[in-house]
């Protein structure tokens, strides 16, 4: 995954509009890209080509359904670990190995590894966290969300 900024010339005004528009999502209809194109005054084909290119250059990480584990009887849980520097790479591999780990970030703190578990069954959270504790010998702090204050998507491209 790309971790450095794209040159300013990589995206034109239409790309930026497309990124802003597509953060809210497309409609479930037979030809959704035609509808998106109509809003930006470009063709369906151009929408598809632009999304393909945005993905290829790493401006977006994916385009697809965003799932809510809780709504299907599962759960998400933010977890954190305090990993000794000399074991960081080894522990990263052990944690990332689990398909339940949806994302994982290194952060500057004593708790230096923060990952999200996403399971389609609630019991999966505890089971996966315990397995990670056994495999790594490190404590996994669990921070499930109790409440979400959610307003919308606002990464202005």
């Amino acid at each position: 995954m790309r971790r450095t900024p794209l040159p300013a010339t990589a995206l034109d005004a239409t790309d930026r509009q497309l990124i802003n528009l597509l953060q809210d999502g497309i409609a479930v209809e037979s030809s959704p890209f035609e509808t998106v194109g109509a809003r930006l005054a470009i063709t369906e084909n151009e929408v598809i080509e632009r999304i393909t290119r945005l993905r290829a250059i790493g401006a977006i990480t994916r385009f697809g359904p965003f799932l809510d584990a809780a709504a299907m009887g599962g759960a998400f849980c933010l977890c954190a670990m305090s990993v000794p520097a000399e074991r960081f790479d080894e522990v990263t591999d052990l944690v990332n190995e689990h398909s339940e780990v949806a994302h994982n970030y290194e952060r500057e703190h004593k708790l230096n590894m923060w990952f999200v578990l996403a399971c389609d069954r609630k019991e999966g959270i505890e089971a996966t966290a315990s397995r990670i504790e056994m495999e790594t010998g490190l404590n996994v702090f669990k921070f499930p969300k109790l409440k979400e204050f959610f307003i919308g998507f606002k990464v202005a491209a």
Partner: protein
Amino acid sequence: MTIDAKDRKILSATQGGLPLVSKPFAEIASWLKMDEVDVMNRITAMQKAGIVRRIAIAPNHYALGMVANGMSVWDVDDEDVNRLGPLVGKLDFVTHCYVRPRALPDWPYNLFAMIHGFDRASVETHRNEISDLLGTACRGNDILYSTRILKKTGMRISRES
């Protein structure tokens, strides 16, 4: 709503991404030997049930120049957090805002607000704005900058139910 084996197949087939073709739902239907209308009806039902939140792009903050990403964390009075949380979530530089349990004594913070910025100085300015907003209801705060993305795949659905 409980998802059945066909719903699961649809989610599993699309979790890497929606096919970028003129008729994406017809394409998914052809992979799964279903018909387009059935696939669209099932996705719509899952959307109504909140299982599919939206079909959208995930922007790469780093590529778009937002290289300073701070998870700001706050120790807010339990009586005040449900009143103040929505105000923090409403700030235009906060992309996610949650109440989470503390893990005392290691972790005294119960309000999490993600701040994305073009540099750390602007993120720190925003952190001060949150601090002002919380006022005396907040006993302490910290900010954890991400230094590396170690994984980012999104949720995975097992194919079998």
